[in-house]
């Protein structure tokens, strides 16, 4: 899809910078003693890369972003580096970052143009430069004609565009996003997500993007760090995260997974509840996983298959999701073409291609997935 943002080469004239966190932890003193929001964390964001911090609320992703921005200080011993410069003790106003907030945080006492030009004005640019750069920014985020509007006259999407333009007007070293689309409705969110993605690619600026939305993370991230309970559970490309999740938590958080308990091993097949799967898996994992879209519906005379009964059917438009009871503790989730007519109660045979089955090596005891996740945290490429 074509971006609605026009190209703006001037914004990106700066050399992109690498962000490094070394042993950054964050502990808050609460009423019930110490609360660890972030365990000691090492993280590098490559120059020009977009890194998405993804996780449920309270996983430490926002704390990490705030430490990078300078709004929060890491506990003693932690270091934040922008390129060759250590910025750990610089307050945010001296770090030269651009930040986009969830609730826009636009200044209600200023109009659109004044909001966008605020950072330039603070930096002491002449009125002429401010006017010109603000104009360029307004063009870039397609807000022409709205320059003199008051903030309360804008829609949510327009507000977030102003916030984006305001953050970029000062040509920051890095761009930071704190759930910028969370307050928008689904349609607008998709639109703006595409636009932000295009813009980040064009600018080639180092960016860190916090979200709890996995679709957003996959669409925008060059790499994704999935966080859980103050630690990085897995760091990798969207493909790695999706197809080779390091922990059960990551597999569950990114999309949907089916679980097969291995009951026995035959010649080129595995015995599971409800039948068998063609696989020559030799590892020692007792659970194998697959994605719903990888489950194949096969004919009843297929020799090795899992057999079950459709217990629920969700029509999704481009596909349909079937819940199939195979006698296992949880039903299998199967995506199939939405043109196939399945009824609740129908008998169904399923198979999974051998290469779509994966084991999770990191840790399989789900409730404590985060406890041993550190070993998997360094598996970046």
């Amino acid at each position: 899809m074509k971006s609605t943002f026009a190209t703006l080469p001037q914004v990106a004239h700066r050399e992109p910078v690498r962000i490094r966190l070394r042993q950054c932890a964050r502990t808050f003193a609460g009423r019930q003693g110490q609360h660890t929001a972030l365990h000691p964390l090492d993280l590098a964001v490559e120059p020009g890369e977009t890194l998405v911090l993804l996780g449920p609320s309270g996983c430490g992703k926002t704390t990490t972003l705030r430490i990078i921005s300078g709004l929060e200080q890491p506990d003693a011993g932690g270091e934040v580096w922008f390129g060759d410069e250590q910025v750990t003790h610089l307050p945010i106003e001296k770090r030269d970052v651009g930040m986009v907030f969830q609730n826009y945080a636009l200044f209600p006492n200023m109009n659109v143009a004044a909001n966008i030009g605020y950072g330039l004005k603070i930096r002491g640019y002449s009125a002429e430069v401010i006017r010109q750069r603000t104009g360029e920014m307004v063009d870039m985020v397609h807000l022409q004609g709205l320059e003199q509007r008051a903030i309360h006259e804008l829609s949510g999407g327009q507000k977030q565009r102003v916030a984006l333009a305001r953050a970029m007007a000062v040509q920051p070293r890095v761009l930071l996003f704190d759930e910028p689309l969370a307050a928008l409705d689904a349609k607008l969110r998709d639109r703006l997500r595409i636009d932000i993605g295009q813009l980040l690619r064009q600018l080639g600026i180092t960016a860190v993007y916090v979200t709890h939305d996995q679709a957003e993370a996959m669409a925008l991230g060059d790499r994704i760090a999935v966080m859980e309970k103050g630690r990085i559970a897995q760091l990798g490309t969207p493909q790695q995260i999706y197809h080779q999740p390091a922990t059960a938590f990551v597999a569950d958080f990114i999309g949907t997974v089916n679980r097969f308990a291995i009951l026995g091993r035959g010649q080129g097949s595995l015995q599971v509840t409800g039948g068998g799967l063609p696989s020559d898996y030799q590892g020692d994992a007792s659970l194998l996983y697959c994605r719903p879209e990888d489950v194949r519906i096969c004919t009843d005379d297929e020799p090795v298959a899992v057999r079950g009964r459709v217990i629920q059917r969700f029509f999704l438009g481009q596909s349909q999701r079937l819940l199939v009871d195979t006698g296992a503790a949880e039903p299998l989730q199967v995506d199939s073409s939405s043109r196939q007519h399945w009824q609740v109660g129908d008998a169904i045979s399923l198979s999974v291609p051998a290469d779509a089955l994966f084991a999770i090596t990191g840790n399989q005891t789900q409730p404590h997935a985060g406890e041993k996740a550190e070993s998997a945290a360094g598996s970046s490429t």
Partner: protein
Amino acid sequence: MSTSLSVRSAGVMHWRFVLQLIFTLAVCAFMIVPVLMSVLAGLTENYLVGLSSGLTTRWIAEVWGLYADSIWLSIYLALACLGCTLLLGVPAAYGLLKCRKRWAAIIEELLLMPVAIPGLATALALLLAYGQFHGFRGSWLFILVGHVLFTLPFMIRPVLAVMQAIDVVRLEEAASSLGAGAIQRFFTVILPNCTSGILAGALMVITLSVGEFNITWMLHTPLTKTLPVGLADSYASMRLEIGSAYTLIFLLMILPLLTLIQWFGQWAARRASRSVQ
């Protein structure tokens, strides 16, 4: 049949309305008549004789001659009090916003103390603590201290409410991410966005300071009499007409302020509901 029903219910409505109107008017009369009597007394030649003695502005002039100093002192005092509460109250509201919930609650309670306990007690405490500093005790600054104690929460509360409503902390974070230091943030973002709360607080402070009697009566000296103290003085020692004329002057000063407070309250509410959208 349905029409007769609606006519009957309209009749019931009508009667209910009339009864409510009578009740409301009666309550209003109960409260307004004494004020009107007082105003009339201030304009009557001889109140004992009644209106037949004729109307005059003589008493007003006489009050002005006797108490102009008190009136001016009250105005200066109110403005000085406003200055103090602005300088103390706006930063205090900001501090309360930033500090932890539990501490903020305790501090707010303490700030409300001078409003909750009788003014006489506050004044007595001030006299016990500072009464021996004669220069201070004899000056209008002593009364100013009492007024600031009493009015400070009325500045802090509306400012704090506005700060919470517009999420000043987030705005400040945005400003600092754009490179603004603490002082720049205060003057370009915090202050301009809190004006509605500051105005509401300012009008409240002026009104309360002009009308404050309890604390002032204890703290004043013959040379530092304020408007309400002068009023008590005139009622106690002068003709009724002079006291009443005094009330009239007081009303003329305070009514525009009250109207402004109302007007700003509505204006601030409109503004707040707009910025939330």
